[in-house]
């Protein structure tokens, strides 16, 4: 595949935090490629390193604690880490934008939503304030809010509407890459359905690539093309939506699916993953999942599993697949 086609390429990213003089490995050796127009779902539980990965792309890691140890991130072929601060600022907003989880705290309460949408367009597209406001009205309508509400303040909007406003702000400059960190987690089910529909519609109508961070496999099934399952800072399994949902292989991926109640059959018992999510300050040796894994063998607690490609799109990092290509699960 031509590198030019990929909107986002993360190569071997490793990020650490220094907390109380101790090293916390937040992200280790992560590779993600998203072609234009496609959506990649990054799935994992608390502390898996999803948000850290996202912040690294924008080069917005909390300083001085956060540190990129190795790796490269290319957005539209440009290495984000090599850019001068001004150039990077220019890229944020115009080429890449981020939507955060909490719609309540992401908006400035003393500015109208119109001003907040227009701000990015004035900075990045050089529009005058009047033009920008007209554009902002169009953006509001695009996300399903009547344009007449452009001069209202955030507190006059409900949670679902605020999240749409945030999406409108993120999209104001037609970014090539949208990073959405749990964009619907704080919303009610029926409102979530509306926002997901909006996200799907945006996807179909543009060449925008999207990195969708979530813990909900149901949402992944709905909007993503590719899926990466993250555990303790590493991507343990990655593939297309069909690879993961029809053909899942990693014991952790199995565990995640087994933990979800079956909506069709309420009698099906839950099969939770035993044990606790590991403390990133004190990761188990070898495969970090081995203490919770029912298939764990001697080498699992000793060596880190290699990446095994099961097909052109599907890879997995688990000792069960190392000797033969036959599926063990």
């Amino acid at each position: 595949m031509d590198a030019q086609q990929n909107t986002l390429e993360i190569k071997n990213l490793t990020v650490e935090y220094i907390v109380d003089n101790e090293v916390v490995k937040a992200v280790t050796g992560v590779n993600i490629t998203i072609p234009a127009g496609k959506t990649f779902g990054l799935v994992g539980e608390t502390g898996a390193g999803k948000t850290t990965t996202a912040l690294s792309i924008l080069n917005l890691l909390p300083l001085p604690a956060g540190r990129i140890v190795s790796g490269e991130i290319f957005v539209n072929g440009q290495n984000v880490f090599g850019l001068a601060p001004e150039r990077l600022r220019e890229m944020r907003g115009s080429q890449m934008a981020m939507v955060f989880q909490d719609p309540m705290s992401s908006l400035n309460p003393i500015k109208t939503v119109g001003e907040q949408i227009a701000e990015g367009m004035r900075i990045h597209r050089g529009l005058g304030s009047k033009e920008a406001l007209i554009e902002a009205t169009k953006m509001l309508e695009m996300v399903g809010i009547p344009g007449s509400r452009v001069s209202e303040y955030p507190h006059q909007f409900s949670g679902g509407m605020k999240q749409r406003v945030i999406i409108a702000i993120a999209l104001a400059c037609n970014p090539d890459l949208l990073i959405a960190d749990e964009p619907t987690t704080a919303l009610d089910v029926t409102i979530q359905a509306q926002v997901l529909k909006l996200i799907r519609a945006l996807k179909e109508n543009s060449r925008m690539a999207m990195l969708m961070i979530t813990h909900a496999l149901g949402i992944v099934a709905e909007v993503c093309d590719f899926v990466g399952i993250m555990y303790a800072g590493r991507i343990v399994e990655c593939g297309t939506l069909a690879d993961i949902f029809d053909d899942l292989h990693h014991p952790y991926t199995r565990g995640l699916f087994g933990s979800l109640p079956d909506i069709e059959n309420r009698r099906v018992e839950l099969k939770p993953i035993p044990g606790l999510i590991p403390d990133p300050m004190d990761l188990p040796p070898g495969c970090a999942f081995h203490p919770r894994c029912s298939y764990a063998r001697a080498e699992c607690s000793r060596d880190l599993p290699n990446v095994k490609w099961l097909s052109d799109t599907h890879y997995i990092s688990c000792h069960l697949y190392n000797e033969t290509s036959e599926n063990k699960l």
Partner: protein
Amino acid sequence: MGETLLEVKNLKKYFRVAAGTLHAVDDVSFTIDQGHTLGIVGESGCGKTTLGRTILRLIEPTSGEMVFGGKDLRKLGTREMRYMRREMQIIFQDPYSSLNPRKPIAETIEEPILLAGLIPDTDKRFMRVLELMDTVGLAERLINTYPHELDGGRRQRVGIARALAMNPKFIVCDEPVSSLDVSIQAQILNLMKTIQRDTGVTYLFITHDLSVVNHFSDDIAVMYLGRLVEKAPAEALFQEPLHPYTEALLSAIPVPRIHNRRERILLKGELTSPINPEPVCRFAARCTKCMDICTKEEPPLIEARPKHFVACHLHKAMVS
């Protein structure tokens, strides 16, 4: 089994707010049988949390009755009510704010036993604490730890141990798993099921998560803006939802599957709050099947099918 443990009759809780009167819980009635689980589902602001607190009289109701084990809770004096609290407990949503950060977890679990004066002997009481920790799957070595040293799942286990301390007959579970990670969520749900099987405790399970409530409850009640709009056995509700809101709610669940996906019913509009509500159907403004009568009259809760109750003008009461 099969005996009614709790009967809630015409329960109302109104709050006075700046904009008027908020009908947080409005004329809600239902019964729960002993050893069963009733799930209460709804979106934010539907009054499900207020309902749970009101039943336990942690919030005093505006009007209505709660008959628990044959006694009307609202008629009990302060002393009797304190005595009654042994029988009815609550598990909270947020395992971070529901434990006193300055107390080691053993003290938190011990406190209800201490207050009830059930086991005056310190050592015996302590053994009971260890027994409870064992029941909820907390290692003995954690006894001296403080809440901030534990992860969410373990904290929630402490909360469950506290609720179980006096062998209650009834536990209100207010979103007990919604702030936990998926893999931990399943552990806690299984634990709560095991406890129910072993002790025969009755649950009122409040949640916004439809797939969890389906898995966990025998009966499900759906609330919308303070009203109970539908109540039925879990299978019936999921197979044949009668209320258009329930239907939309069910169709909105993101299902972790990529084949045979259901058709979505997208609701228009946003959730509002029931401040000074008109005597009409509260769902009418967002309903895809809204009729003339819906904006004129409030539909009563009727039994449309055996054991299947609904408050919607589309349905007629069953002729018995």
